[in-house]
């Protein structure tokens, strides 16, 4: 593990360092350092720290969106009053990621860039249709979060590219959202999770978005299920049919956290629970 450690002072500096050969970016580092110690990935020659870069540290409301710096620790995102008030699914997800010790250090950007299929912040951000701001040595670009993940540990980030912010459109009046999750014990990765956002109008689901975690190689929008439910009134038979579609739409694996079968079952249950009128209130876990 013989690497050089660079604490960059500005985004520009970080971009230059990150563009060098055999370098890795480290923000909170809670996933990366464990992976290196367990030799699950090779050590880079240069570790480029972007912890508390001022450009990545801000949370602000801009034109109906919340701009969350990618380097903001999850504890701070969780404590943000705008997040708590307008983004209940994200709030619920952040509250169950790791422990306080982890959330005090691990960043929202890191949770996404690590690209774990079980990253709990991803399903809420998928249903809120967040936009990710990326910066590279050749310039800046934006990308919809639904286009970000490629596979376990793989994203569209180019070598040396840094995620700088997550922009979340704030839902309008009447919009509802929820996040449901189950894990073996409280301190655990998700066995499965589901986020839902929608508006209920005349008993019908409008502008429904669904996303699931830990049930496919990447966090996943459930577009077929959404399409089936869009504009339909919430009835038990409809939910049962939708749950069936959702179960077929996900592609889980069996591992120590749960079998493929059980994960599909959970997705169906979460779907009903998220959309049933009496349980549409924000809920932290299943």
């Amino acid at each position, binding site marked *: *593990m*013989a*690497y*050089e*450690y660079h*604490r960059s002072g500005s985004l520009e500096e970080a971009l230059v360092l990150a563009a060098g050969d055999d370098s890795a970016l*480290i923000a909170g*580092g*809670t996933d990366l*350092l*464990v992976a290196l*110690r*367990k030799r699950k990935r090779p*050590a880079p020659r240069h*570790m480029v*720290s972007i*912890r508390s870069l001022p450009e990545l540290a801000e949370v602000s409301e801009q034109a109906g969106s919340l701009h969350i710096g990618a380097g903001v620790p999850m*504890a701070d995102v969780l404590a943000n009053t705008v997040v708590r008030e307008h983004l209940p699914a994200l709030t619920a997800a952040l509250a169950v990621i*790791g*422990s*306080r*010790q*982890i959330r*005090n*250090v691990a960043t929202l950007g890191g949770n996404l860039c690590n690209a774990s299929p079980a990253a709990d912040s991803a399903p809420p951000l998928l249903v809120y249709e967040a936009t990710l701001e990326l910066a590279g040595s050749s310039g800046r670009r934006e990308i919809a979060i639904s286009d970000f993940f490629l596979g376990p540990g793989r994203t569209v980030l180019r070598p040396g590219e840094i995620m700088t912010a997550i922009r979340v459109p704030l839902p309008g009046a009447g919009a509802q959202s929820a996040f449901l999750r189950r894990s073996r014990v*409280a*301190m655990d990765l998700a066995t499965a999770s589901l986020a839902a956002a929608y508006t209920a109008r005349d008993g019908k689901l409008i502008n429904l978005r669904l996303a699931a975690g830990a049930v496919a190689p990447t966090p996943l929008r459930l577009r077929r299920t959404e399409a089936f439910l869009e504009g339909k009134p919430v009835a038990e038979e409809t939910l049962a049919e939708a749950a069936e579609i959702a179960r077929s739409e996900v592609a889980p694996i069996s591992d120590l956290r749960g079998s493929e079968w059980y994960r599909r079952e959970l997705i169906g249950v979460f779907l009903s629970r998220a959309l049933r009128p009496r349980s549409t209130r924000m809920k932290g876990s299943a």
Partner: protein
Amino acid sequence: MKTLLRFQLNGREVAFEAPPHARLLDVLRDIAGLTGTKEGCGEGECGACTVLVDGRALNSCLFPALEADGRSVVTVEGLASREGGLSELQQAFVDEGGAQCGFCTPGMVMSAAALLAENHSPSDDEIREALVGNLCRCTGYTQIIASIRAAGERIGKAATQ
């Protein structure tokens, strides 16, 4: 190739040389000689290595030592007065039976210190939530929770007097 690192450790300015891959835990235990902070897993699951950095509880096993530069670090050794008097929180752990084998205790105490700094009267569920990253195999947590509840009451009482 080591880097000089300066930070405040339990209220005193310190300087150490540390290699780039050193964890804050390694500097505290192996260089500063403060062995109260324990390594229980090395992967942020057990919380035995919990310390406060700029007032926030974190796993020192996941924190690069070089990132401590310029910050304030408090370990379990920094809670008691120099003469060895225990803090209210530590005394509550003694009185309520919050320590058994004691290996998780420093981390438990530090997580509790961070919680009580922001909330003097946490509910039992708030205490549990704050301890989710601290494993204990001896106590079943019951008397740890009682210790933290008692400490909160004492600190709250002292603050209102």
